[in-house]
């Protein structure tokens, strides 16, 4: 058994860690102007800190009007999906050192949803698509007195898609969704998958029919942007493929 002693993490912490970075943020406030503009902020930050920390430094010490959503600050609540250096990420899960702080770090709102102010978008169409796939367990017959039984293997079948935090990083990285907001988008399909492949659920056919729609699962062009964007590491494209296959074979 390993007996831990002082390790490498500690050794690094003594030297002054601060560096200067430029945060280049796409600003938009319809109370001020109809046009959005890029604005640069120079801040001192420890590169082991998060992009969210950088945004807080700006908001708290420089410009209180900078507006973004955030809550848990460690990748669980899904509030702070943003486009950082051109890729969808959670600001609280992205460390400065990992995104080349030598160059300006660009931060803008996620795409495909209406920007309301700075980094805040209208989430309503996103949640509507989610609600449309009936994201809840549907069963028939009488309820058992104890829990429904489920084997560990059956539980594992949909484990990956239970991890979704509804941050919209996947949906707003999808070129099909950018072009046509009617597309359900990856997140809604992921949440349909979570129930279609749950052995306790009895409404898989209904959900498949919903996704068989012209704005459903067939719009997916397997660009894998969604899988790359998912901060929870869900294999989103694979889940979408499994739903497509279930639609063809009617087996799930």
């Amino acid at each position, binding site marked *: 058994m390993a007996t831990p002693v002082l390790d490498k993490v500690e*050794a690094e912490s003594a030297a002054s860690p601060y560096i200067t970075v430029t945060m280049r943020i796409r600003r938009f406030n319809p*109370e001020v102007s109809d046009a959005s503009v890029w604005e640069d902020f120079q801040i001192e930050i420890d590169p082991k800190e998060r992009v969210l920390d950088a945004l807080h430094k700006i*908001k708290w010490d420089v410009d209180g009007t900078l507006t973004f959503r955030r809550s*848990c*600050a460690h990748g*669980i609540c899904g*509030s702070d999906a943003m486009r950082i250096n051109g890729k969808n990420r959670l600001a609280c899960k992205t460390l400065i050192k990992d995104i080349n702080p030598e160059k300006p770090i660009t931060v803008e709102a996620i795409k495909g949803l209406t920007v309301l102010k700075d980094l805040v978008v209208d989430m309503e169409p996103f949640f509507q698509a989610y609600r449309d796939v009936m994201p809840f*367990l549907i069963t028939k017959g009488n309820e058992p007195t104890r829990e429904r039984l489920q084997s560990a293997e059956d539980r594992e079948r949909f484990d990956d898609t239970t*991890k979704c935090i509804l941050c919209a990083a996947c949906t707003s990285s999808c070129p099909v969704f950018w072009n046509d907001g009617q597309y359900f988008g990856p997140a809604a399909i992921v949440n349909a998958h979570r129930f279609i492949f749950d052995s306790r659920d009895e409404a898989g056919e209904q959900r498949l029919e919903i996704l068989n729609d012209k704005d459903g699962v067939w719009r997916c062009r397997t660009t894998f942007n969604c899988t790359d964007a998912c901060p929870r590491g869900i294999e989103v494209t694979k889940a979408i493929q499994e739903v497509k296959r279930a639609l063809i074979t009617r087996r799930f």
Partner: protein
Amino acid sequence: MKIHKYDTVIVGAGGAGMRAAIESTKRSRTAVLTKLYPTRSHTGAAQGGMAAALANVEEDNWEWHTFDTVKGGDYLVDQDAAEILAKEAIDAVLDLEKMGLPFNRTPNGTIDQRRFGGHSRNHGEAPVRRSCYAADRTGHMILQTLYQNCVKEGVEFFNEFYVLDQLITEIDGVKHSAGVVAYELATGEIHIFQAKAVIYASGGTGKFFKVTSNAHTLTGDGQAACYRRGLPLEDMEFFQFHPTGIWRMGILLTEGARGEGGILRNKDGERFMEKYAPVMKDLASRDVVSRSIYTEIREGRGCGPEGDHVYLDLTHLPPEQLDAKLPDITEFARTYLGIEPYTDPIPIQPTAHYAMGGIPTNVEGEVLSDNTTVVPGLYAAGEVACVSVHGANRLGTNSLLDINVFGKRSGIAAAEYSAKSDFVELPENPESLVVATIEKLRNSTGHERVADIRRELQETMDANVMVFRTEQTIKTAVEKIAELRERYENVSIQDKGKRFNTDLLEAIELGNLLELAEVMAVSALARKESRGGHYREDYPNRDDVNFMRHTMAYREVGEDGSETVRLDYKPVVQTRYQPMERKY
């Protein structure tokens, strides 16, 4: 300004609020007002599990669970409430499973269970497997499952509506709830919600500490709204410091990690919990483990150049077990510390985690305006409330349980109350306090900044009222908070707009934190004993003669407008368990 009328209004959409909403929507016209989108709530950050004596993997019963809860709370728990919590736990877990919650399973397909701190077989004999879990994301699954069922039931949400004031109308000298005042983030508009019943489920106050597992948004808004309207706050001096937060960041690493076999070690590699808790060891209750960690650090056995943390060692556990049972926390270590938990121990320190105190309620969730009087139409559940099922120290997995048991109870009670009651008349100019608060901040030309005051508040709270407290440190905190409250009068904001003005809301949230920090410190100063999460180095023993009682703090406003905290006390309900010395 808009006026809405609903039978039942729920403030907050975390676990307690949504569990209540599922019940009350079936029975009454219900609106849920939430400052965050529902799935953003901090219930989602809970990891380890939800306790219930299902006895799926070994012998267990709810009476043992009741005892553990009472003992864990250092006998400040109201025992009638703890009994309800433990007894109804079983149905609460089964309810969630039937709603679709994907629990981990045993080989025979039932809900799997694991060990957790302070939960024992037969009154302390040995650890017991009582925590029902879904990997290390049980809170996430509960939050998602409850939201899914809110969608199913058609619950009406008002997202990003901040409730800033509780409306009270006195009828024959009795305070009645008349509704709430909310601020719509998107537009800056003020909304009055007249309601027959209001349920607060708005969460905790952890953001007055610096190193905390709490979200930025946990600013005690519900507690402050009630307190400002003359309602008491109970046991606010009792705050839980979770032993294993990520060093300096405070991000939670579940107790389930120790339930799976993880071990705490000091700089010499010693398993130091064996000294402090010979039976339960690393799974002693959280207050005991947090104090043990700081004792190690103070006696020079902490790790790192500054000796300011210890290690959570998972390296002896098989990688497959970590992947299957603790996937999220091992990823946190990789993401935020660059550490591989398969091979390296994780630096941790205690982190401010949970408010045991809050708005006093009875077991139906009805809010009390003194030791016995119910406020008709007003309810609270979850971390915002104090039933009290957690007493001086909450057991791990009992908060996910609390939100489900008392969320459900308050949802049913509130809806039944609104079905048989009339609307209470609104007070005159119901919006006036909120308008005055907002306009003052918007028009202020003062030179104080929200971020500076908040930073100083958090630093003083960490330094003076954390795991170890003395008369001197608490007094320092009281004085500093008073100074900060004075400076807060001159705070100004930069964003003067209407649309998504989070600058304004952060200023209001800071006002709530300052008010509640004062209540906490004043309550802590008066409790001259050590019990559960409240440890006084100058009074290291529990004093059942003088302090076996709940603190009740009231806001008093003098004729000159000056504000003080008045303390009163409430007896503890004891049924079957006599206080004993607490050993693990």
